[in-house]
């Protein structure tokens, strides 16, 4: 009981000193809980949506995806004939059946040719207005679409793009472009997170999306009273046979949910990973806080020991304080987590993703996990300082409270740290030299882990060395104030080391990723320069296929020498060794592709692969299956018949673009795949006639912009820039998430300084008494802070660049051939860290300056 009482009193007495540690726990727990609440809420939202939008049983074509995504690579959705409707109606237990047409491959534009698709990556759905929709939606203005020139739009999309009744819109599909005017606006009764939905009447939808009447993509079946969905499904299957896909509402929802879940899980685990890093950094802060509190209380603890407290009791009293801290930080963190989740939902709102706080889902596991994590991490972090407290001898009560005895980093520590670092360095070296990606990545992971731990362990030693160097380089300028700052930073190398190490972790990751990112850009650019012989590339902005009309438009553009179409076909390959490889992709292109992308071959001439009934395979595949030039491979096209193709070229694996591609000509593919099932082009390449590049580029842009705004044409320069932007965007997102860990680390610097100022009250008093001005005092503390921050940055950047360079060496196997160190980023981070140091010292320096000289001297 007394233990608890002393702990509680100590905790309350030092609540100011605990504040930053509590904040660190709070932030980490909040991030974990925020992530969980946010992803759970997303799940709830989608769950409700899918529950609401699917009918009892849905019948669709065999080829359509499980989640009912009515899209296919042909640009037209797979359909069932209208005749099934009658057969379904005849089945037992069917109350009604309604045929509908939907497609997610259409692009919708307004009168100004601006796309009306969501920027969040959510689908654009064009479909027929049917009874099922009428149940889940409410027409808020106008009327449902009737006739070929009417379209109804969902409320969110209408709102965002300011669509009014009577506004003209265009629907671009593989069939053609259909124009209609807005006849009505309908709002979802549940939350629609972001899909843009356009309704046509049934006939118009059939003509526009499929190009034929009398077909449906889905048949929505409603059960008669007392018939379960499962029973209904059985009856429908019995009536139709097995030629169709028949799913209950539950199955559709589950399949949909699975798609969403896989995306959400990636996001969830990525964010939890970053929360984990923040926790790791927070541990340093907590260890420092408790170490300093224990050091400051040495005499007090000595007294407790002298009057009979056992080691265990002292130990426990510190741990109980940690427990209190953990509980407080976690409870606040859970609350803040819900706030973060709501903030994220609002942020998503800015990116066209609508989430309602009505769906806010806080599972009981979320606060439980948050509390558990917060408390366990805090108590574990406090364990070492607590043990040290237990070791305080009763004699300490009698001694003067001098500098802590552990000022010198132990030799054992140095040896262990150096061994770990050396082992880590060895692993990294092995990773860099690995000739197989899989083994190499294992070494890389091990190396990263070991060097990180090693650096943390020898941090105090490095602190002693590096701070002296920094002192000699920077602090000299500041004279005696600089010298005192240096000495203060060196006074307790373990503390400086731990504080710097906390910052090191975040910055090492930043440095590593920036090296890998810029190496990626540099390598890709290098490859593009070396191998690409075409001028322009046309792609869909959302990765969809390119409709034939657009390809025609490209071909008609003046100034072009050649246009190459490029598409992917799914196929099952049977090789001469008898192996059947399922789920392979065949890259079908026009023969000119051999000029557009100069892929190296190890045997044969790639141009020959485009001859009739010919193909190429890649080196690895050829080796594995014993394929030589002239071998025959049976290619069973998923959308057609089996072709027997002769291998005329074997491409090198030492390529970046189209690595692992197997080429054939579109003409060859067309002989085995019927036209209505032939996928559309994924990419179209265009090459300008000599000297007409600029004009052709302009003309291409103009041709696509007016009629096909969903496609973007890029020349090599723009393509490289787009690549760079894309990687830059990804990196920025990761940096944003790492900011959490860096913020916690900065709190750690503030914490160390604040506690140091308290610890050095008498010294500060003395210095002030003998004439150190407030300004000089503040500068001294700021300089100490800058030194700690810069120390952390040096370690972090050094370590991170090492990791990044190793990763590049390893990824060179995957084509990341060029190592590029992004010096502007590295320098920026370094200079930024100095400012972080200044910033962290603001409050501690201010408080030190405000200290009353006499009180400071009098403090015992």
């Amino acid at each position: 009981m007394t233990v608890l009482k002393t702990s509680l009193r100590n905790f309350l007495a030092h609540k100011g000193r605990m504040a930053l540690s509590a904040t660190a726990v709070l932030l980490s727990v909040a991030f974990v809980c925020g992530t969980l609440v946010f992803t759970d809420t997303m799940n709830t939202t989608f769950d409700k949506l899918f529950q609401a939008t699917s009918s009892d049983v849905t019948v669709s074509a065999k080829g359509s995806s499980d989640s009912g995504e009515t899209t296919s690579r042909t640009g037209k959705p797979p359909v069932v004939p209208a005749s099934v409707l009658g057969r379904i109606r005849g089945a037992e237990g069917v109350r009604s059946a309604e045929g509908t047409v939907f497609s997610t491959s259409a692009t919708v534009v307004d009168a100004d040719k601006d796309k009306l698709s969501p920027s969040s990556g959510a689908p654009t759905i064009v479909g027929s207005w049917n009874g099922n929709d009428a149940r889940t939606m409410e027409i808020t203005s106008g009327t449902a679409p009737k006739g070929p020139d009417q379209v109804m739009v969902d409320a969110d999309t209408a709102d965002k793009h300011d669509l009014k009744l009577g506004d003209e819109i265009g629907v671009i599909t593989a069939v053609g472009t259909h124009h209609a005017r807005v006849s009505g606006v309908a709002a979802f009764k549940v939350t629609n997170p972001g899909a843009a939905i356009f309704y046509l009447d049934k006939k118009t939808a059939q003509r526009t999306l499929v190009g034929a009447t009398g077909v449906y993509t889905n048949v929505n079946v409603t059960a008669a009273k007392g018939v379960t969905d499962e029973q209904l499904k059985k009856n429908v299957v019995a009536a139709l046979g097995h030629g169709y896909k028949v799913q209950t509402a539950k199955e559709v929802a589950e399949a949909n949910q699975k798609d969403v879940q896989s995306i959400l899980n990636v996001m969830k685990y990525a964010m939890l990973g970053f929360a984990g890093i923040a926790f790791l950094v927070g541990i340093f802060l907590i260890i420092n806080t408790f170490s300093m509190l224990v050091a400051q209380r040495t005499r007090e603890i000595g007294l407790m020991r002298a009057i009979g407290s056992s080691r265990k009791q002292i130990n426990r009293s510190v741990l109980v304080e940690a427990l209190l801290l953990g509980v407080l930080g976690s409870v606040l963190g859970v609350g803040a987590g819900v706030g973060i989740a709501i903030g994220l939902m609002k942020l998503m709102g800015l990116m066209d993703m609508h989430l309602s706080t009505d769906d806010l889902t806080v599972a009981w596991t979320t606060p439980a996990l948050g509390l558990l994590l917060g408390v366990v991490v805090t108590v574990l972090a406090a364990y070492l300082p607590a043990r040290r407290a237990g070791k305080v001898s009763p004699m300490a009560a009698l001694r003067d409270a001098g500098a802590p005895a552990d000022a010198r980093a132990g030799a054992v520590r140095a040896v262990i740290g150096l061994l770990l670092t050396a082992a880590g360095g060895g692993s990294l070296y092995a990773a860099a030299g690995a000739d197989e990606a899989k083994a190499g990545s294992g070494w890389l992971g091990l190396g990263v882990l070991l060097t990180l731990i090693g650096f943390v362990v020898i941090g105090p030693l490095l602190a002693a060395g590096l701070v002296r160097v920094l002192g000699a380089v920077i602090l000299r300028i500041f004279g005696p104030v600089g010298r005192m700052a240096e000495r203060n930073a060196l006074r307790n190398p373990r503390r400086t080391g731990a504080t710097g190490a906390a910052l090191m972790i975040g910055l090492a990751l930043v440095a590593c990723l920036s090296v890998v990112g810029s190496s990626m850009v540099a390598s890709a650019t290098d490859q593009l320069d070396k191998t690409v012989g075409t001028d322009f590339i046309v792609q869909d902005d959302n990765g969809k296929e390119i409709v034939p009309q657009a390809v025609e438009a490209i071909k008609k553009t003046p100034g072009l020498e050649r246009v190459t179409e490029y598409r992917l076909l799914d196929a099952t390959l049977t090789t001469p060794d008898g192996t059947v490889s399922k789920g392979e992709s065949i890259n079908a292109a026009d023969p000119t592709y051999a000029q557009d992308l100069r892929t190296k071959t190890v045997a044969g001439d790639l141009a020959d692969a485009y001859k009739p009934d010919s193909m190429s395979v890649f080196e690895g595949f050829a080796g594995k299956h014993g394929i030589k030039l002239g071998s025959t491979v049976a290619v069973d096209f998923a959308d057609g018949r089996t072709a027997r193709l002769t291998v005329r070229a074997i491409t090198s694996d030492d390529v970046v673009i189209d690595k692992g591609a197997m080429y054939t000509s579109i003409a060859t593919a067309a002989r085995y795949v019927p036209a209505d099932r032939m996928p559309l082009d994924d990419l179209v390449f265009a090459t300008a006639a000599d000297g007409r590049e600029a004009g052709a580029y302009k003309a291409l842009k103009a041709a696509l912009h007016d009629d096909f705004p969903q496609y973007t044409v890029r020349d090599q320069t723009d393509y490289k820039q787009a690549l760079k932007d894309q990687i830059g965007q990804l990196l920025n997102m990761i940096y944003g998430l790492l900011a959490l860990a860096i913020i916690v680390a900065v709190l750690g610097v503030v914490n160390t300084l604040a506690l140091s100022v308290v610890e050095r009250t008498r010294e500060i008093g003395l210095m002030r008494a003998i004439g150190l001005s407030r300004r000089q005092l503040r500068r001294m503390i700021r300089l100490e802070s800058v030194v700690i921050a810069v120390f952390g940055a040096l370690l972090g950047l050094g370590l991170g660049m090492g990791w990044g360079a190793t990763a590049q060496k390893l990824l060179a196997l995957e084509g990341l051939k060029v190592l590029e160190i992004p010096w502007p980023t590295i320098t920026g981070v370094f200079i930024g860290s100095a400012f972080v140091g200044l910033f962290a010292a603001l409050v501690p320096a201010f408080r030190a300056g405000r200290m009353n000289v006499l009180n400071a001297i009098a403090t015992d």
Partner: protein
Amino acid sequence: MTSAVTIPRHGGTGGRTAVAARARQVVKAYGSGETRVVALDHVDVDIVRGQFTAIMGPSGSGKSTLMHCLAGLDTVTGGQIYLDDTEITGLKDKKLTQLRRDRIGFIFQAFNLLPTLNAIENITLPMDIAGRKPDRAWLDRVVETVGLAGRLKHRPTQLSGGQQQRVAVARALAARPEIIFGDEPTGNLDSRAGAEVLGFLRRSVDELGQTIVMVTHDPVAASYADRVLYLADGRIVDEMHQPTADQVLDRMKDFDARGRTS
């Protein structure tokens, strides 16, 4: 009114007045109303240049407060304090800090030195802070006087208590301040080390012409001074010139007796 004011004389060196510091009607009170405690009650004091002055008195007499006020470490509630001709009461922190740095030296009872700096760095610290170059010859003389020549590179933790106080004395002397204030400078030392330090203080007055004010409750320490001021209840109640330890002790006993009877 209590007074320990000497008749102003003009000294022979540098045109400075013979009084290094003076206090006029200084009042220092804490709290207000019922809880008001007066630590200094209209004190007048002149500190004579080139003299070693000791301030004595029982605990709570206000002797430390008086020293802190004279040294510009503490603010006064009323009255004026002058250092030479400069009135320091009412000075802003910046000016006061400069004044302490350039014109005053300090020796505290304990914790006089920065643990991160070695002996010589501690000694030159006030000048370093001020950005002044120490006078090499003077520094050597001071170091020699306090007998630290062999230990200048030692950190405070590597020095004995007596050595640490000698470093503090050296620091106070090195900047050639107009006045040195000592707050029980030998309070933490055994008698031999204490005698050593006091000897240095005495010599610095005799040989270097230094002005020193020292708060102490030790009659032996006070006997090293030229003049002893006695404080009781925030007032100066007596003073003694060229005291001996026995005289001081007798006087202290006298106060104690009076304190008990009154």
